[in-house]
């Protein structure tokens, strides 16, 4: 058989290529470009080599922000994934309540991110916020604008409130796709509800949970809007996550070179973690 060569095909993929070039490749290369140069404004650039990368990787400020970021992401994953699975297991699988539950679960996901930040900002105010006032009234000395511990507590609570639904919805989708026959077979075997969870539900949810963890990992690692509205990184630097720090360097101090280098390191860290996680989770599935 002769292969027909049709060079016109390139013409048809051109729009996509242009689109990708402008929204991904060009900006990324700009950042790469900045990361190896120094500028004092006026569009004058000097070659800086890997100096910014060395500076960032050695800076305690970056280490601290990265540490805070890892702590934040680790904590919310450790809470949201099990909690999401538990809620999904408790949701009804049939009947009129299914849609009610689904709509309720989808609600937090529909709220714009800066609104979520503003909501919790007000919610937590010690003098007039429902949460802040209540906690203070019952005897807790709660003030998220002054005490780092309280700021973290509020930040994590906010993220759990906002994003657990996503895990719930994905886990639920995994659960309802299990045919009834599996549950019947387990009942015939006399399997306990723990055994049903361990040997039927969990393995059947593995794929969607992998996706859920990946999404939550990447999103929480990139999180900016909500903490920036809620605490602005404070008190002090206590809740300054990577993205907040990055914006401070890039826009606050206008250090384009270090900010660009940091962006690339940031990007590579996310890529690395996601890749490791995905590889480990899908290892045994190739055949």
């Amino acid at each position, binding site marked *: 058989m002769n292969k027909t060569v049709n060079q016109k095909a390139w013409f048809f993929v051109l729009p996509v290529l242009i689109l990708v070039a402008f929204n991904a490749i060009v900006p990324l290369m700009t950042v790469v470009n900045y990361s190896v140069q120094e500028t004092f404004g006026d569009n004058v650039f000097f070659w800086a080599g890997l100096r910014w990368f060395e500076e960032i990787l050695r800076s305690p400020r970056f280490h601290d922000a990265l540490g805070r970021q890892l702590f934040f992401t680790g904590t919310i994953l450790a809470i949201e994934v099990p909690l999401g699975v538990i809620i999904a297991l408790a949701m009804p699988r049939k009947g009129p309540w299914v849609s009610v539950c689904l709509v309720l679960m989808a609600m937090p996901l529909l709220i714009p991110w800066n609104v979520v930040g503003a909501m919790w900002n007000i919610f937590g105010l010690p003098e007039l916020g429902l949460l802040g006032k209540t906690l203070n009234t019952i005897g807790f000395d709660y003030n998220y604008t002054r005490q780092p511990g309280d700021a973290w507590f509020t930040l994590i609570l906010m993220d759990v409130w906002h994003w657990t639904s996503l895990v719930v919805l994905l886990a639920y989708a995994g659960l309802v796709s299990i045919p009834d026959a599996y549950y019947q*077979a387990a009942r*015939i*075997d006399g399997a306990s509800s723990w055994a049903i969870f361990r*040997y*039927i539900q969990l393995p059947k949810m593995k794929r969607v949970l992998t996706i859920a963890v990946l999404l939550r990992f990447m999103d929480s690692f990139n999180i900016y809007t909500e903490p920036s509205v809620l605490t602005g990184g404070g008190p002090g630097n206590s809740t300054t996550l990577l993205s907040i720090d990055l914006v401070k360097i890039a826009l606050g101090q206008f250090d384009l070179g270090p900010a660009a280098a940091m962006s690339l390191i940031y990007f590579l860290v996310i890529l690395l973690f996601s890749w490791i996680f995905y590889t480990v989770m899908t290892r045994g599935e190739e055949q």
Partner: protein
Amino acid sequence: MALELKNVAKKVGADTHIHPTNLTFEPGSFNILLGTTLAGKTTLMQMMAGLEKPTSGEVWFNGSNVTGVAVQKRNVSMVYQQFINYPNMSVFDNIASPLRVAGLPKQEISKRVGEMAELMRISEMLDRRPSELSGGQQQRTAMARALVKDSDLILLDEPLANLDFKLREELRDELPKLFAERNCVVVYATTEPTEALLLGGQTAAMHEGRVVDFGPTGEIYRHPSGLTSAMVFSEPPINLARAQVKSGWVLLDEGVSWKAENGLAEGAYTIGIRPHHVSPVSRSEKSVVIEGKVKVAELTGSESIIHFQAHDYPWVSLSHGVHPFESGRFARFYADMSKCFYFDEDGRLVDLAAAGEAA
């Protein structure tokens, strides 16, 4: 260890899924539930197993009432149409799971799993996961799990439906042998009349939530109790036509007639004749000629299935050999009416032998 259903019925809301049903399955018997999808086979099986509670009536097993007893407390196995195995357990662990729940010693478990795997010809697969097996092997694993624990009642719900033709033949062949030495009640649901005939045993023909016929499989096929039973148990569908019996002759609506059998009382009947008794070639002089317009001719390698319209009735002819027909053409078919069933106004089969003796 007989299984008895006493007036068992199942209603869900206003819908009746199973009408009051009485059935007795003897120990060591192979029983087939034959019926189309939604005939109630699965519901009936689930009530036998104790997975569903009947709305009324009782299930008795081995002389005791087990109606409300949970499925875990009965000694039941079930195989499904989908291949149901624990996804992240090896084949060995899958087969061993019911024995482990029963708390058998390790040695005994590996001995029995080994034997069962050999019988099912999956010995080489024991270390693999179900997802690494072919459909047939997955179903063999599911069957091994069901058979390994010496159940009193084994339920198979269309176990071969999702397998390809070759595997289906193989397993269908092996199945009755696997149960032959056991003293348990086996119930097998299928939608295919041919499968029921090949498996033998006893058949309960089901239609719209009722058991319309029950008895030895061949017997039910040759002497269906009535019109519904004959319809359930015929593939391709049985040919039906209205007929009148008058002064010793059977008259079909379209003016076709033949001499009535002895003892057939005068009156209106529905006649039923299976497609393989209607042939495009004349096989005996007594054959009755039916003329019709050919609609579709399905030619398989060795058989011809020809659908044709004779006056008001759709007819099907099933014959050996390849008989090509152009659709839209008129053709003559030869029906061997000595093989036809006569159903009275209530749809009951007229027992010609008894009627002949009485006359």
